[in-house]
């Protein structure tokens, strides 16, 4: 399989998962037909042509490298909705948002030119994968399940599943970053109240 097709297939997973979740709605116990319908509808919606290109290709214009972390979290969220079982506990989700918000604050302001230091360059070397292994180990030792999700960027990066060769793109993306910042801000605001 060519790398282009592999990258396209991977880049389609996160939009499909997100759209499936959206189509499942808020009902905590969806029926089986509804589950199957949501998954299939999400798949076909992504193939609807818009100005000559499927919707999925338009997603790739904006987000060509959904992070493995985001894809993993969407998988967990979808599995929880489909099985009606809690895979992640509250502290697992909190860890996901705290790690995402911390990485966002490190990566994006400086990456977009705030200082002469560019954290983006760390992603081409071995520093970032090792740092990720350290954080994942810490979380796993503490019994936090988000540690398992942090193995996905390492795995995906090893198999070159993304168009990008930068490990930051395996670990982070703007959608995961923005969601993490929003949730952490809300959690802090709630605690301060």
């Amino acid at each position, binding site marked *: 399989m060519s790398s282009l097709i592999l990258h396209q297939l991977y880049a389609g997973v996160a939009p499909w998962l997100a759209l499936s979740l959206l189509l499942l709605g808020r009902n905590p116990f969806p029926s089986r037909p509804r589950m199957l319908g949501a998954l299939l509808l999400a798949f076909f919606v992504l193939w609807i042509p818009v100005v000559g290109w499927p919707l999925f290709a338009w997603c790739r214009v904006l987000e060509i490298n959904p992070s493995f972390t985001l894809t993993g979290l969407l998988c967990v969220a979808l599995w929880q909705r489909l099985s009606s079982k809690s895979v992640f506990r509250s502290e697992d989700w909190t860890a996901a948002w705290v790690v995402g918000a911390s990485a966002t604050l490190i990566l994006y302001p400086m990456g977009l*030119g705030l200082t*002469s230091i560019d954290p983006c360059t760390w992603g081409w070397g071995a520093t970032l*994968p*090792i740092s990720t292994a350290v954080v994942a180990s810490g979380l*796993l*030792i503490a019994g936090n399940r988000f540690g398992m999700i*942090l193995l996905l960027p390492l795995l995906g990066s*090893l198999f070159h599943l993304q168009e990008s060769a930068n490990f930051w793109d395996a670990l982070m993306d703007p959608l995961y970053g923005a969601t993490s910042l929003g949730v952490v801000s809300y959690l802090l605001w709630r605690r301060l109240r």
Partner: protein
Amino acid sequence: MALPLRWLLIGMAWLMAGALYLCRPGIPRSGDFTMAVNAASPGLGSPNFQKTIVNPGQGLPMVHVASLATMSGDMEAAVWYGGSAECAPDVKIYFSESEHGSGWSTPRVILDRQKVEADLGRPVQALGNALLLANPDGTLRLFFVTIAMGRWSGSQLNTSRSHDGGLTWSRAERLTLSPFFNFSELVRNRAVSLLSGGWCVPIYQEFLGKFPELLWLKENQGNLEYGKSRIAGGCSSFQPSLVPIDARRALVFLRDYTDNRKIFLSRSDDGGRIWTKPTQTQLPNPDSGISGLKLNNGKLLIAYNDSPLCRDNLALALSDDQGASWEKLVALENESGSTFAYPFLSRSSDGSIDLAYTRKGKEIALARFNDTWIEETWASLEKLPGGSNHQ
């Protein structure tokens, strides 16, 4: 989570991190620069200056941003983009070649939006700046900008390769260089080859900030390995023109995005790893492209718009103290209401200096001159009462 499972996962994490450590040595973000003056014959002889049009009669409403490369033998190649307007969907990338001394071939399209879209597997709004590199193995490497949405702030960098002197081009590939939706990395100025066999390409970002960066490249059995480093952050100067002084020392000239309206300059003494904070020179800059080159005698040459306000002229200036002070050498173009922009200086295979630039928005002009012509023009300036314009 059971304890054995935890330790198994931790073991897996470290195994994968170890594998990534071994297979991701990273591209060195500094290097020894090769010197163009060493690679070419001296470019001396009798004074010579000639001006030609690379694309006579092309007839496009807009052509812009030319770059040059010396191919194997005496062949020179030029690429630029053209269409109905900047960022328009009909913009294509054109290629022309010339055997040294003869005219330029009829421009032909090497990339259009449809081919790039098919190669990348996603819609592209428009094509933009292109930069051509000639590898020592005879292959050509093209870097070009595509716009995903909006204008230049929504652009990305791509690459393609030719094994037959520019006749056919490989499938275009996207480079991922920016963390935020890969916005917005652009290429414009001449790349510098490295003694290690790689390239250092000046690039820049103009999304939230506008700042200069360097792209470090290495061709590895047909695969392009790359990484980048930053010259400066912020939102004040960008579009670097990289000029090596020797193998380890280099400087970059920077386009100004502030109200100072001056060309900025930054220096490195360690192969491009660490750069000084950009400082302004005496040379004006109307937020326009510039290009620099080191001459055989050690002096620095710069092509620039000699005005803080507009691009209605194009001039050359010289520095014999590594950029500390400048003297205007000559105005190559000067016509009120016209535009002369985006100069691209390079050394051709016979040692002469080529300056390509956009002339009146519709032509790619090429001024070819040698070091002796510069020396003579410089000497005649010194004879004039009052000397020069920029001290």
